[in-house]
């Protein structure tokens, strides 16, 4: 149920993000989602791609600092409190969220949340218990 996420170190200089995208494009690797966290001095790019192993290899070959992490992707119900229910469930078992971001494939689609938990397995268990829709790699990439 866990999904591999590639993260990259992003220097604070023009063209760096562009170079990352171009490397993946040249190798024919499609980016499912991309999120960017940045400070004045540097940033972190987080990517989910279908063939993460090949993605990692291509990026490393191009000289980028790459790191691969397990994340959890879940859809959130489009009702008030939908998000709060998910957060409550993981909070109750004492799991912390390191970070999260959201995306959707098409307008009107349900939003997909990507989480990095400090204990992914425990979080998945808790989310399942409340019937949350957790996406595995094949469901995610079939969109």
């Amino acid at each position, binding site marked *: 149920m866990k999904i591999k*996420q590639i*993260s990259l*170190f992003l*220097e*604070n200089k023009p063209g760096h993000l562009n170079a990352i995208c171009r490397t993946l494009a040249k190798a024919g690797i499609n980016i499912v989602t991309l999120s960017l*966290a940045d*400070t004045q*001095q*540097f940033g*972190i790019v*987080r990517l989910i791609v279908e063939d993460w192993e090949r993605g990692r290899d291509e990026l490393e070959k191009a*000289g*980028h*600092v*790459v*790191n691969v*992490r397990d994340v959890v992707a879940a859809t959130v119900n489009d009702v008030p409190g939908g998000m709060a229910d998910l957060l409550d469930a993981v909070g109750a078992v004492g799991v912390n969220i*390191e*970070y999260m971001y959201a995306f959707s494939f098409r307008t009107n689609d349900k939003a997909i949340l990507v989480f*990095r938990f400090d204990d992914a397995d425990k979080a998945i268990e808790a989310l399942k218990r409340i019937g949350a829709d957790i996406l595995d790699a094949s469901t995610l990439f079939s969109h």
Partner: protein
Amino acid sequence: MNTVPVIENRFWQHDAECMPRPQLESLQLQRLREAVARASALPFYQKKFKESGFSPDSIKTLDDIRRLPFTLKADFRDNYPLGFVAVPRSEVSRFQGTSGTTGKPTWTAYTRGDVDRWADLCARFLVSGGLRPEHTVQISFGFGLFTGGFGLHNGIQRVGAAIIPISSGNSARQIMTMQDLRPEVLICTPSYALKLMDDILSGNIDRASIALEHAHFGGEPWTESMRERIESGLGIRCWNNYGMAECGGPGIAGECAYRNGMHIQEDHYIFEVIDPDTLEPVKPGEKGEIVVTPLTREAMPVLRYRTRDIGIVYDDGECPCGRTTRRMSRIMGRTDDMLIIRGVNVFPSQIESALMQCKAVSPHYMIEVSRPKALDEITVHIEMEPSFFSDSMREMQQIRENIDRAIYGATGLHMVINLVSPNTLERFEGKSKRVKDLRNLKF
């Protein structure tokens, strides 16, 4: 040579400052013998003397100084912390410090007598540069271990002027204090004076609300063009002096009313100028590395200290002010890679040793010095170690904070820490040139 004084010509210790040359030189010789005798109590010099077969009582003329060993900055590090202190601990009255070449500082110790003489030496250049007992002086140097703050503080106290020990920083408060307490004299680094000037000129501040007449600068080298800029911008006189912590701090040389360079306080210091490669004296009046021997320091009798400062000792006759002492030029550069940032001495090796304590960085770094406004800034570009890259912003920020803290611990300065990708910084064969100075200072 200037023959017209810019202000009234005054003295603090007239007889010492204007001593006839023969008398001065025999005093120097006597004091040099005493200094060598004090130094020979230190194992460091005992070993050096033994190696060269020098006998401490064989000083017959002033030229014999050339038979003494040099003392290098690195010798302080190798004899850390107090290998150069020649008196028992109970006779040490004060410690001051300056940057060392690695994480440890260089200590300088004073006896009560040293502190006393230091006050007079500072009073000399302050008085020749316009200070009067009825003045109020704003000291915007940092106090603490830095010799600048306390040296000037004691000198001003000796003259009897009133001190506002405001210390550095917070320029809005500095300017408010200038308006409210109306000091006539300002003490700070020249770059801080530039910043204050910019703030005063751009801040809609009535010049008449500020009583400043003089500024004494120190802590970093500055240029004649900076002098002109600040003097015309603020309508004040700016004065230069010279000193370094290893030899006792400010008060080693200072300008007189004629401004023909800085008079060396030769009754307390002997100057030599050498070629840093051959270590031989340069021809009179030529540029070279300044070597200083303090003659009267009891706590730390350092011999022939190689300052790494480049300058000239003039050989063009007596100054019309009446002082018989020789004069020196401004400092024109360094023979090593020391940087002076906001008055703090920084060695690239200090930054390197701090970086090496941090696990997450590779040994590839680049130091960039710039002056975005009036004040200097250092940016350290560091290649990060790929295995330490984390997708968590918190962990990445922690890495930056650890680097900042290590550098601050070693240098006392906060720098801009810029993490860059591996293999992106220039590589060097042989001696690295890891410092880029974008300030373009011309001395």
